[in-house]
C-alpha cells in the first residue's frame, strides 16, 4: 500500500487521480531513498539506466567493436529479447510456484498455446480454409489469412491461455504436492504433441441436426509449424515500427516485462497474495480462516499461465515462425531453474534468474565454446553440455544458497534451518544487498522500509 497517497472519491476519475498522485510522489520518494541509502540508490539508478540504454549502445557501438576489434561475450538483440521472453515466463511461474507454492512442471504448455494463438491470428495460415480477416493491419487489405495487430493477439493469448490454465487446474488442484506436479508434467508433454500431430485432422460426427465432417485439415502445420507470422508493429495498433529488428524488439520485451512485474507485485501485495501465502504456509489453517483454497489456487494457476501466453505470443511474433519443437519439456525445467536460482517467491529474483540463465545459455556458453574451439578444437564443447552445467549449478546452489540469489524473506526462512540461523541469514542478506546494490526482496519503498526496520527487531527476540 503506497502510504504517500490517499484515495479520494470513486470511479475512473479517482483512479486516474490516484495513479497521477502516485506517479507525482515518485520524485520525492526517490530523493528520500537517496538520502537514506545513498549507495544503493545510486547503484540501482545506474542499473536501470544502463539496462535502458544498453540495447542502443550495443547496436551502434559494441556490436561492431566486438565483431571487429575484440570479441566480448556481450548479449545481442536476439539474446536480450529472449531474456525478456523468459523473464515474463519466470515471473509468471513465480506466481504459481513462488507465491502459491504449487509445483507446475508443465508450464511450457501455456507458452506453446500462446505461440500458436499468435500463429493462428497473425499469419496467412487460415487462408487455406478461405478465412481472411485483416484488422488495422500493416498487411494490405487483400491479404490471405487472419492478420490481427500484436496487442490484440497478446490479449487473446492471455484469455485463451488463462482459460486452459483454469481447465487444467479445475480437476487437478484438489491434488496436493507431488500429484499436482505429475499431472502438470503430463500436460506439458501432451500439448506440444497435439500441435505436432494436428496436421491432418479428420473429424466426422453428428451434433444434433448438424453433421460435422472435417477431413484431412492441416490445423497446426505439423512438424513444419506455421510461418510466416506477422511481426509486432509498434507503438499501438500496428503502425510505424516493425519491432522485429534491432533494439526495438528488446524495448517491446522490456515493456512487457515491466507490465508483468507490476501485475505480479500488485497481486503479491493484495488480499490474493496474502491468501496464496496462507495456503503455502498451511493449507488447512487457511481454509479454516475462510480462504476458498480451490478457487485461490485456480486463480494462481490461470494468472500464472497467462504470463506464458504473452511470452509465447511475443516469441512467435518475434521469430516469425513457430513449430512444436520449440516447446520441449526442457523449457519447463529451464524456467523453473530460473525461478529457483533467482529466488523463489520474489519477482525480482525471477527476473534476475531469467536474465542470468539466458545470458549463460545463449551468450556465455557459445562464447566460451568458441574460444576453446579456437585454442583446442579437440576439447569437449561446453555449449553441448548446457543442461549438465545447469544441473551442477542447481546442486551447488541448493547446497550453499537454497533460497536463490534474491530470495523472498518468507521463502528464505522456510528453506533455511530452523532457529537462530534465520536471523543471521536475514541480517547477512540485507548486508550483502547493501554492498552489491541489487534490489532486495520487495524493492518498493514501503517494502524496503518495513523490512529494514524489522530485521534488528527479529534478531533481538530470537
Amino acid at each position, binding site marked *: 500500500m503506497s502510504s504517500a497517497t490517499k484515495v479520494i472519491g470513486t470511479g475512473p476519475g479517482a483512479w486516474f487521480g490516484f495513479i497521477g498522485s502516485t506517479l507525482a510522489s515518485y520524485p520525492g520518494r526517490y530523493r528520500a531513498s537517496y538520502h537514506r541509502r545513498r549507495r544503493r540508490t545510486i547503484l540501482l539508478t545506474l542499473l536501470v539506466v544502463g539496462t535502458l540504454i544498453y540495447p542502443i549502445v550495443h547496436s551502434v557501438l559494441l556490436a561492431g567493436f566486438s565483431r571487429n576489434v575484440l570479441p566480448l561475450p556481450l548479449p545481442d538483440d536476439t539474446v536480450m529479447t529472449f531474456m525478456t521472453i523468459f523473464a515474463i515466463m519466470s515471473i509468471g511461474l513465480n506466481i504459481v510456484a513462488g507465491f502459491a507454492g504449487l509445483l507446475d512442471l508443465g508450464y511450457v504448455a501455456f507458452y506453446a498455446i500462446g505461440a500458436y494463438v499468435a500463429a493462428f491470428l497473425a499469419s496467412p495460415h487460415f487462408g487455406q480454409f478461405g478465412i481472411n480477416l485483416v484488422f488495422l493491419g500493416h498487411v494490405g487489405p487483400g491479404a490471405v489469412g487472419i492478420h490481427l495487430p500484436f496487442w490484440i493477439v497478446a490479449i487473446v493469448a492471455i484469455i485463451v491461455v488463462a482459460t486452459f490454465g483454469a481447465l487444467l487446474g479445475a480437476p487437478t488442484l484438489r491434488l496436493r504436492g507431488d500429484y499436482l506436479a505429475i499431472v502438470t508434467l503430463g500436460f506439458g508433454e501432451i500439448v506440444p504433441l497435439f500441435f505436432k500431430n494436428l496436421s491432418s485432422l479428420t473429424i466426422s460426427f453428428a451434433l444434433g441436426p448438424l453433421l460435422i465432417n472435417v477431413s484431412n485439415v492441416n490445423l497446426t502445420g505439423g512438424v513444419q509449424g506455421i510461418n510466416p507470422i506477422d511481426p509486432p508493429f509498434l507503438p499501438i495498433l500496428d503502425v510505424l515500427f516493425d519491432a522485429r529488428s534491432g533494439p526495438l524488439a528488446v524495448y517491446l520485451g522490456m515493456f512487457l516485462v515491466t507490465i508483468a512485474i507490476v501485475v505480479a507485485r500488485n497481486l503479491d501485495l493484495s488480499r490474493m497474495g496474502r491468501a496464496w501465502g496462507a495456503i503455502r504456509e498451511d493449507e488447512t489453517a487457511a481454509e479454516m480462516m475462510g480462504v476458498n483454497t480451490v478457487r485461490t489456487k485456480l486463480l494462481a494457476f490461470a494468472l500464472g499461465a497467462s504470463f506464458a501466453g504473452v511470452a509465447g505470443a511475443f516469441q512467435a511474433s518475434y521469430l516469425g515462425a513457430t513449430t512444436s519443437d520449440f516447446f520441449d519439456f526442457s523449457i519447463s525445467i529451464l524456467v523453473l531453474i530460473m525461478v529457483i536460482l533467482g529466488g523463489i517467491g520474489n519477482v525480482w529474483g525471477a527476473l534476475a534468474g531469467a536474465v542470468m540463465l539466458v545470458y549463460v545459455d545463449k551468450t556465455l556458453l557459445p562464447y566460451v565454446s568458441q574460444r576453446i574451439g579456437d585454442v583446442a578444437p579437440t576439447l569437449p564443447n561446453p555449449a553441448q553440455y548446457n543442461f549438465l552445467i545447469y544441473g551442477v549449478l542447481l546442486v551447488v546452489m541448493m547446497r550453499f544458497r537454497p533460497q536463490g540469489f534474491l530470495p523472498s524473506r518468507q521463502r528464505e526462512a522456510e528453506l533455511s534451518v530452523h532457529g537462530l540461523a534465520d536471523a543471521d541469514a536475514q541480517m547477512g542478506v540485507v548486508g550483502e544487498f547493501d554492498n552489491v546494490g541489487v534490489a532486495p526482496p520487495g524493492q518498493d519503498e514501503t517494502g524496503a522500509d518495513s523490512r529494514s526496520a524489522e530485521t534488528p527487531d527479529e534478531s533481538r*527476540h530470537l
Partner: protein
Amino acid sequence: MTVQPTPSAPTLPSNLLTGSIADESILVRSRGVTKRFGGLTAVNNVDFDIPRGAIVSLIGPNGAGKTTFFNMITGSYIPTSGDITFDGTPIVRMAGKKAKSLKPHEVTKLGIGRTFQNIRLFGTMSALDNVRVGANVHLTSHWWDSIIRTPGMLREEQATIDSSMELLKLVDLDTRADTWARNLPYGDQRRLEIARALATRPKLLLLDEPTAGMNSSETRALTDFIRRLRTEFGLSVLLIEHDMRVVMGISDRVTVLDHGEVIAEGSPAEVRANPRVIEAYLGRDAAEAEAEA
C-alpha cells in the same frame, strides 16, 4: 495481556439449564451426529446445543472425540450421519443416506471462527498479515481490482489494516504487528490466533485448548479475555479445555464426552458431581471412593 476487571457475566435465560429453550436462543443445534473412521466410532449420536451468548465447554478424556466434533462443526470433517444447524443455516444435513457438509471456508463465512489445539499460524507472515488473512473472507474487491489498484480496493485494504490493528490492540499485540508470527512468544501466538479468528467476524468462537501450555497468570488473563469477548462482542464460545479450573470457572454449561458419547451435560456444578464423569476421568474405583466419601 492487561487484566481488566471483568463485569459479571450477563444473566442467561433462566430456562437455559432446564432444557426447554426456544429455537431462536440456540445458535448451534446438532442432532444425532456420528463420525466413524473405518471401524472406529469417534463420535456417536451426539445431540448438542450451544445457546446464543453462552460459554459452553466440551470436556472429556483424551480420545473422547472432542476435536472430531469440533472439526465437524467447522466443516473439515464430514459426519457419517447427523444434522448440524448454525443460526438457522444447515451446516450438515442428510442427503439420502449420506451427510452433506458445507466447506470450511463457507462455514467460516457464516460466522464460526476457530483456533487450533497446536497453534497453526502462518509463520512467516507478520502478525498483522495473519489477522488480515482472517479478514479476507468479508472483502469484496476482486483480483482485477488488485492488479490495477482501484480506489475502492485500496480503501478496502486500508480499512482492513485499521480494523486488523484494532484487533491486535485488543489482544495486546499492536506493538508486534510487523513481527513474523513464528517469532512471537508462545502466549502471544495463542492470542494472535484468537485475533485472527475474530477477524473473520464470528458469531461463535471455537477455542481448542486455548490455555494449553500457559502458566496460571496467563491462564487467568485469557479466561478474563474470553469473558470479555462474550460481554463486549456478544460472542458465543465453545471451548475444549483440560484445565478444570478454567472450565468450571468460565462455563455456563458443560458437556462431557467419553468414547464419542455424551455422558453428562449441565451446569459446572452438576457435571462435577456426576459419578459417570468422575468414573470416566478417574476410573471406576475412584468413582466409588468418591461416592463413599
